[in-house]
């Protein structure tokens, strides 16, 4: 008997701690007890990792904060559920948000595509969005960052800045966005300086920051002096780079220079504010979904950010060439190839 009670207690305790870090509406949303008249847009975000991963998840969270700031906290309500890497758990969170009447539900991961198809038909008035992806439905937007474009520019920058002649990529799992980004970097390096080598390696995980750190150490000990990599484990690699003198990092998804101001040269930054604003506007006009929203340099949904503190580490010629290439991407003159399937 005692045994059973204890097991129950332990289970309850576990649930408590787990739920403690699960769903929670952000504090920024206005208290607004009843607040009837104001037309309020309610947005829910479902994340595979955490709100503060300094990568994919956090970039979207900051985009939503920016939307709230621009449109007014009383006009936009944001609720976030994190750590839902498991598609089944994510599915129940998404369904719950839809049932609670959220207008726009962002399932921020390519892995949510199949979960969404099971849910979206039951909520035809709700707008869903997910990405990276291509498949849409009448009430589902898919968004697709052209990660290879920034990868290309960062690759050029790396090739023209490296002293050892080796650029190292610390990749997560060889699939989807990571491959897209890495392929861009590889092309950019070739374009930047033909005899610079790109060395690509993967940890086989998205969230093993210790593994990413170790892989970065191996990359550096084998000669790479400029490194880059995507996904939420990338901060582990960045931390390893930041501990080593004269080694630099190029970040993607968002600017990671906050934790290593002396080692992040530049960043490819996603501007989710624009994407979410577009979804809100389309919804207001009656378009609930059915479109693929592409993020790229052309409309400013992707941007390149330099670390002002390390401006002297980048040769002027490199910066000029990168800026030129960026203009060519914007004008359509330069198309960065996607990896062949």
């Amino acid at each position, binding site marked *: 008997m005692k045994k059973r009670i204890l097991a129950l207690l332990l289970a309850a305790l576990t649930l408590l701690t787990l739920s403690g870090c699960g769903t929670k509406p952000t504090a920024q949303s206005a208290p607004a007890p009843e607040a009837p008249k104001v037309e309020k847009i309610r947005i829910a975000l479902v994340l595979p990792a955490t709100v503060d*991963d300094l990568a994919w998840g956090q970039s979207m969270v900051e985009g939503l904060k920016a939307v709230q700031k621009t449109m007014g906290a009383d006009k936009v309500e944001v609720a976030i559920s994190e750590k839902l890497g498991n598609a089944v758990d994510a599915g129940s969170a998404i369904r719950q948000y839809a049932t609670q009447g959220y207008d726009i539900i962002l399932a921020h991961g390519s892995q949510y595509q199949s979960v969404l198809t099971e849910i979206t038909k039951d909520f035809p008035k709700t707008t869903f969005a997910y990405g990276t992806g291509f498949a849409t439905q009448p009430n589902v937007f898919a968004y697709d960052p052209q990660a290879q474009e920034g990868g290309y520019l960062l690759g050029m920058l790396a090739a023209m800045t490296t002293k050892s002649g080796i650029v190292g990529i610390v990749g997560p799992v060889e699939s989807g966005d990571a491959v897209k980004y890495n392929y861009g970097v590889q092309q950019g390096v070739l374009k930047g300086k033909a005899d610079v080598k790109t060395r690509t390696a993967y940890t086989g995980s998205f969230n093993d920051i210790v593994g990413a750190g170790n892989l970065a150490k191996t990359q550096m000990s084998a000669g790479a002096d400029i490194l880059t990599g995507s996904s939420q484990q990338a901060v582990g690699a960045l931390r390893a780079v930041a501990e080593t003198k004269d080694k630099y990092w190029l970040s993607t998804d968002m600017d990671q220079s906050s934790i290593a101001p002396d080692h992040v040269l530049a960043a490819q930054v996603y501007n989710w504010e624009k994407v979410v604003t577009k979804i809100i506007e389309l919804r207001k006009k009656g378009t609930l979904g059915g479109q693929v929203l592409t993020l790229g340099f052309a409309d400013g949904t992707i941007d390149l950010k330099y670390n002002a503190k390390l401006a002297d580490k980048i040769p002027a010629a490199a910066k000029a060439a990168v800026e030129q290439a960026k203009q060519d991407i914007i004008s359509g003159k330069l198309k960065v190839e996607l990896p062949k399937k």
Partner: protein
Amino acid sequence: MEGVVNSDIIIIILATGIRLATPYLLAALGEMFVQRSGVYNLGVEGIMMMGAFAGFYATLQLGSPLLGIVISLVIGALMGLLMALVSVTFKAEQGISGIGLYMFGWGLSGLLFRLYVGGITSVEGLKAIKIPFLSNIPFFGPVLFDHNGLVYTAFLLVPLTGFILFKTSWGLNVRAVGNKPEAADTLGVSVVRIRYQCLIVGGMLAALAGAFLTIGQANMYADNITAGRGFIAIALVYFGRWSPWGILLGSLLFSLADSFQSMVQVLGINFPYELAVILPYMVTIIALAISYGRVWAPAALGKPFQRGTRG
């Protein structure tokens, strides 16, 4: 700089392998005592996460990785005590309570991190200690004698735990309790006390393994930082047949394969990445499959002890 000499590459692979083996070694040696006493604790991963957070947070607040280690040992002991309470005193099914402890540790460490830290923050972790003279030996110096203190600790624990387990009366009691608890009980050895002690020691070593990840490797904390290493450590206890030297062999085999595959990828040697990342697991399983015949295990493993009944 492309002309990296081959011996340099080998040094990197070996030194990295030794570094990578450390958390497995620490956690598995702890779990060895636990299982030798007849309990299997599947909560190692959860304890590691708590130790990882405790070590990180204490280092962040107090500015000293040594204090971080001390605090993580205390937290590990408490987690071990919790497991002992549930599985020894209340005799709950060990597999289930271990998984419960794992989820508890995962949830609680993530929650504490969110409450008290809140974002990616890095700390000044342990520094490498070059052993005088020895680290100057060509080849062996950089491979063996240029690591941080926890790496040396883990490897020194191998002979030490071997001595404790096989050459001391306490070790004899542990083995007796894990094999024939009734007999040990008849001879006046407290089964409960020995199991409590082993779970506490196991918890401390698991927490130390976790702390190694946050303040000896990554120098930061993130959710789920252990990424399955606790479960691999448990598997290595089986691989090592509950002996420190077997565990050392397993940890090294796994970690060297891991370090080797990273280097293969980095050097761009034409080898499929999918195969590369599973190489450590493959090597370990193959070695396990071909190297041992009959399986020995502590006879009372997994069975709660109840005086007056069989098993």
